[in-house]
């Protein structure tokens, strides 16, 4: 038995309902990958759990411990079988489109956050475009270096969102001939690795002037190397994420800019959308599903936040 030729034809109204269905044991499940990654735990998951508490509904967080997209897909597949009220899925890679569609056609309200999944029938997406994160870092580093000097950047190679971040960065730098990109490095989401690479780069290019980091371990790693080379402040660092560690480093003037995402909003409003969808908070038609529409926003860009020495104190709790 062969798979359907083209599943994008399938309308997303598999989610059928009558206004007066009572929702039994309501549960919202969030499925990500690298579920133990501090950035996820302290922003996405924290907000999601707060939301659950406020609304008094059950919320669960699932997913593999390591960055493993196939495993995330497996988890989603297994969860679909348990028919949760709504699914909140971290858009880690376009490859999860299929399983999202499976969830949708199984009639489960499904919201994607962080990165959008093209070609999926998700009911809604909230997040930021990683390309923008790259661009933002690019523009800031260019500003900091007055448009000239050597820079290097690092992250986890092969991850869809990061690769588009890299693209964003390079597209900016392209426009500045005096900027010399000395290398793209894989820090394997590992502080020691990031530190090692950074200090190797520093000794390879004593005149290095800037670093850009793309995963939450890049920042601390680069910062460590720069500090130990006694060049804190002289070498400009921009990176992603705003863990306490990162904020501290900005405060100390080692890191110069953090391109932060409003990850709390991803999951808080994502969950809220799911809730409103199943509870018909806003009805457009007599029966939205029958009408083939969803009663929640299709796409939301939560925008980025730019943390620098000026405003860092506002973030340190």
């Amino acid at each position, binding site marked *: *038995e*062969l*798979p359907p*030729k083209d599943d994008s034809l399938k309308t997303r109204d598999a989610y059928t309902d009558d206004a007066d269905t009572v929702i039994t044991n309501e549960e919202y*499940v969030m499925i990500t990958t690298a*579920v*133990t990654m501090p950035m996820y*735990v302290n922003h996405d*998951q924290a907000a999601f759990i707060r939301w659950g508490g406020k609304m008094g509904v059950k919320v*669960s*967080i*699932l*997913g593999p*411990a*390591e*960055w*493993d*997209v*196939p495993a995330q*897909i*497996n*988890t989603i*597949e*297994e*969860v679909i*079988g*348990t028919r949760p009220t709504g699914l909140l899925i971290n858009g880690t*890679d*376009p*490859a999860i*489109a*299929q399983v999202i569609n499976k969830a949708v056609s199984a009639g489960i309200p499904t919201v994607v956050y962080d990165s959008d999944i093209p*070609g999926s029938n998700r009911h809604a997406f909230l997040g930021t475009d990683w390309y923008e994160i790259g661009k933002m870092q690019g523009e800031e580093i260019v500003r900091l270096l007055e448009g000239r000097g050597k820079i290097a950047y690092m992250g986890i*190679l*092969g*991850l*869809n969102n*990061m*690769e*588009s971040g890299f693209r964003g960065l390079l597209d900016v730098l392209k426009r500045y001939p005096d900027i010399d990109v000395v290398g793209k490095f894989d820090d394997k989401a590992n502080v020691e690795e990031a530190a090692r690479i950074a200090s190797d780069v520093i000794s390879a290019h004593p005149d290095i002037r800037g670093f850009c980091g793309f995963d939450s371990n890049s920042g601390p790693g680069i910062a460590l190397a720069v500090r130990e080379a006694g060049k804190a402040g002289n070498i400009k660092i921009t990176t992603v994420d705003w863990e306490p560690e990162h904020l501290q480093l900005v405060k100390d003037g080692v890191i110069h800019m953090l391109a932060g995402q409003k990850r709390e909003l991803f999951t808080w409003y994502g969950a809220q959308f799911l809730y409103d969808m199943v509870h018909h908070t806003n009805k457009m038609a007599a029966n939205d599903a029958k009408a083939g529409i969803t009663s929640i926003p299709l796409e939301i860009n939560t925008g980025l936040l730019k943390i620098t020495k000026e405003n860092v104190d506002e973030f340190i709790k």
Partner: protein
Amino acid sequence: MLKKILEDRVYSLLLLLVVVGIMASILFPNTYPTFDNFRQILLNLSVDTIVAVGMMVLLISGAFDLSVGSVVAFAGCLTAYLMHFYQLPVPIAIAAGIASSMFIGWLNGFLIAYHGINPMIQTLAMMGIVRGMALMVSGAGIQNLPYWFNAIGQSKLLGIQMPVWYMLFTVLIFSFLVNKTVFFRRFYYIGGNELAADLSGIRVKRMKVIGFLLASTLAGIAGILLSSRLGAALPTMGRGLELRVITAAILGGASLSGGYGKIPGALLGALFMGMISNIMVLGRISGYWQEIILGVILIATLWLDKFLQKKYAPIT
């Protein structure tokens, strides 16, 4: 009876699986013991198991291969690459993907057996090389692959997705071969005592190369299968798969020092881990707790196994 079961890991593990299954069915009566759920569990471990079969053969001969995870990624990405950027017909692209994984396996085996390079470092280095090549061909991953390619992994038979059937097929074939053919039994002798095997007229070096070739080939097939199932090839596929697979095989009765193990053990080992993680999903256990609990369960299992053995089947 009990003695017999306890002496053979395959049986004791089977027993354990049944017990766990029953317990889970009591805990989650309407989500666990369903056809859908089991279909899903099997589907999710099919790729691991196919790799584990090859690893089992290697472990029997006293070796192991850390590069299989990267091979999964590379074979998948290369195949996708050829189809996507060179519009190669599906079968040819697949052939190329498998051929590449065969070459990698052959190279591992050749350098280890004929040039005495330390297996651990050889395969670890190869792991890095091949992962790098996967990144090279696929960048951030390759989507919308040809329909017929996706059909391989996404079509169903009797309501069960194909990968499950491929897995069962692989396990059956190799159980048979390893039990019933002189050729494959040689691996047990090599694992048992290399010097003696050589003097007994077994071409140890050649067999070792074949062992690595086999493991890598199965990894390649698994990789192609995975990307066909995902409908996309990611350079990050199979990260950490090598350890998972070796663990499954050892759970299934293999030993790093060689000479022991049976093919079905690979499946049962993987199945055990699959069931545990499935149960944790149903139980909504996640975050660091899932790592902690999985670890504790693994240790407890082996401890129980040893304990019962000491008690009922002492191997003086």
